[in-house]
């Protein structure tokens, strides 16, 4: 199955409806479409914004590799991954992953796989700007994210 793969790293917001459309329009083979949207939380009102730094070039490369691995592992018809950089406000979108397949299980698993590996492999870093005017710490990586990715290696 030849999957339609799109990866984008961009400052501006994405349009989920348009991305869904571009994976489904004019075709009758998509039975299941799963989207994941990651949003910026306000941390109980203490967060002013997240600043997302990335490694241009490598970010695209890594996410593309992850999407291609997903397409090799599951019968995907399409995979889209869009990650924003720069300042993101609470309630705004950070990342979008879409997987399409004839079958629902494949679409669910592939979308979750792409997100798990994107978190541990794509070179992005978040810094917190606090409501009180202070520039907070760099967000620390979570062990849970590593183990989320590792479970795909046992499976």
């Amino acid at each position, binding site marked *: 199955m030849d999957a339609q793969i799109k990866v984008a790293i961009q400052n501006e917001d994405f349009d989920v409806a348009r991305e869904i459309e571009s994976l489904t329009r004019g075709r009758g083979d998509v039975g299941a479409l799963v989207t994941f949207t*990651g949003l910026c939380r306000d941390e109980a009102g203490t967060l002013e914004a997240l600043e*997302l*730094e*990335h*490694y241009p*070039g*490598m*970010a695209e*490369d*890594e996410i593309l590799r992850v999407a291609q691995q997903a397409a090799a592992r599951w019968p995907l018809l399409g995979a889209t991954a869009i*990650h924003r950089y720069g300042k993101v406000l609470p309630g705004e979108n*950070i*990342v979008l992953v879409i997987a399409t397949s004839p079958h629902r299980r494949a679409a669910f698993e592939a979308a979750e796989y792409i*997100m798990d590996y*994107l*978190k*541990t*492999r*794509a*070179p*992005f*870093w*978040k*810094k917190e700007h606090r409501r009180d005017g202070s520039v907070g710490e*760099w*967000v*620390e*990586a979570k062990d849970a*994210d590593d183990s989320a990715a590792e479970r795909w290696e046992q499976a």
Partner: protein
Amino acid sequence: MSALKLSYFAWVRERIGRPGETLTPPDDVKNIGELIEWLSRRGEEYAYAFENAKVIRAAIDRQHVKHDAPIAGAREIAFFPPMTGG
């Protein structure tokens, strides 16, 4: 060895105080771990950035590598903290 383009991201960049530079390490610096040690001796800002070397991630020519990866032939080497995207 020849000149290497080095790139730093997130708090590695902040601690070193610049986004990158071009340096020529001595010939006995063979892998990422040795490059980190050599950089750490260049000044306080490097020592601070690499003080906990085992958490530092590295990429050679935009591919993740471990600290024992040889740097021969590398054009660009990047150092950064564990990633927190997504």
